[in-house]
């Protein structure tokens, strides 16, 4: 029988999962504040219903399921009814280190490409290529069949390949690689 969970366990969850969850939510929602809101709500929700964790095989997809559900809820209820902040405003929050223009361009391109994907495709892409979940884990997280996940991933990759922002990003990269080798 599973031991009862205490606040220390929540602290552990936060240490291990909070940063990645916020970034996942950010990629899904496209907004930093919404992402932080969603993840806080998701962790509190997960904590409240921690008893259901015993029925899940793994913690990671269970937690992402909460995060995805909360993001979906926000996308459905709040985000469409609010003026979205401009990309420029978003970029003010970007941590500036080296290669600022390149990094800003990268963030812009990726976020633009993700934003143009429908939410159901965006979620699987983010869970697969950022959160690094397997197809089976994604299926648990979004409560769909594994085949559905597979087809959504294929569709998302096909659409991203055609997106002008990522195509330009790829061509820039290939040019810079040629320069290095040349």
């Amino acid at each position, binding site marked *: 029988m599973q031991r009862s969970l205490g*606040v220390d366990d*929540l602290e552990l969850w*936060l240490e291990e999962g909070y940063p990645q969850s916020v970034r996942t939510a950010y990629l899904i929602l496209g907004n930093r504040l919404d992402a932080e809101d969603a993840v806080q709500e998701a962790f509190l*929700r997960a904590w*409240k219903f921690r008893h259901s964790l015993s029925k899940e095989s793994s913690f990671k997809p269970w937690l992402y399921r909460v995060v995805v559900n909360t993001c979906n809820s926000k996308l459905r209820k709040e985000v469409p009814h609010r003026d979205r902040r401009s990309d420029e405003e978003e970029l003010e929050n970007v941590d500036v280190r080296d290669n600022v223009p390149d990094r800003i361009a*990268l*963030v812009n391109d*990726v976020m633009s490409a993700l934003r143009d994907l429908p939410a159901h495709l965006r979620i699987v892409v983010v869970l697969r290529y950022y959160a690094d979940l397997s197809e089976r884990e994604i299926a648990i997280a979004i*409560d769909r069949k594994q085949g559905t996940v597979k087809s959504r991933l294929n569709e998302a990759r096909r659409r991203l*390949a055609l997106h002008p922002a990522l195509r330009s990003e790829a061509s820039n990269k290939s040019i810079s690689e040629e320069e290095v080798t040349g």
Partner: protein
Amino acid sequence: MTMIDEDELSAAIRGAADEFEISKDATDRILGEARKGEPGLLRFRVPEYFRHQSRALQFLSVAAVFIVLAAISIPLFRGEISPTKNKVAVSGSGFRPVTRNSAGLAAKGLSPAPLKAVTGQLGVIVTGSTTQNAAVLSPKIESTGSVDLTVKKGQVNSSLTKLGGLATGDGGFVLSTQANARSHGTGSFSSGTIVLEVPQHLFTKFVSQVQRVGHATSVLTSSSDVTSQYVNLQARIGALNASRQQYLAIMARATSISGILAVQNQLDAIQSQIEQYQGQLNVMNHATTFGTLTVTLVQSGQAQHVTHQRSGLSKAWHDGVDGFIAGFEWLIRLAGPVLFAALFLGFLVVAGRWTRRAVRRRRI
């Protein structure tokens, strides 16, 4: 088909996501909330039973609730849709419905007990005959009738009193009266109905007397001979009485308790049958002792409900209109339960969706 390279895509997304710092305060806020206790995120708690059931079981549970509710509501609707059944059962007599002015009268014809006393509006009390030793061979006739009278304006009340007086004068009594005022505050009645019981042998004469009270617009009488049923009942009672006597003789000789009990059982059954037949006999006795006459009074100048004998196209036209109205009434009557069922189903669908959504969220 063009597909983006997975590694490139992963690197790009990671690069974009890793570009901002994570707020350190957020985790403290979450921990603070968690320490406060249960966050009130969801006010609706799905019962444990539903939370861990499969969708099929949830559906079955909802279906079971629906069936139980339907089982409760359908008899209620049936009761509303066909109220005339109850009315007929309550009125009990073959005459047009009248307002009884004595509670005991409502049971006339239904209770096997003899009518001991009947009180009318005029305060007449008559004791009904319960004689069993009446002449068996004399014919037993049940007579009923109705008379529609038109009386002068303002004479409805006095005519009702006069009719009551005629009945009591002949040894009968008033079974019920009903007087209707045309408008409030006039002080007089514009129409009325009186049900009279008069001795059988005076029934025909009484009908003639009644017709003289006003102008008769309709007279209808009918009689039926129930002698054979009467004799039959008497014979059955006689046979049962004979059996009863024999059992009593056997009981007198019985020595064991089991024997006495067995005989007593038989006696009880026979006694019950005798009482049942006796009750029927008493009712029949009353019906053949008194004839029932319903008199409807309307003051002159008031429109009467006259039924014309129609034929041909007129009859077909009126039948068609009646049929149309009846169909319309039927539709309106049906609309109530259908609307209820639709609303109920709608509620179930909405509740089902809401529950399903809540359950899915709670499963997380």
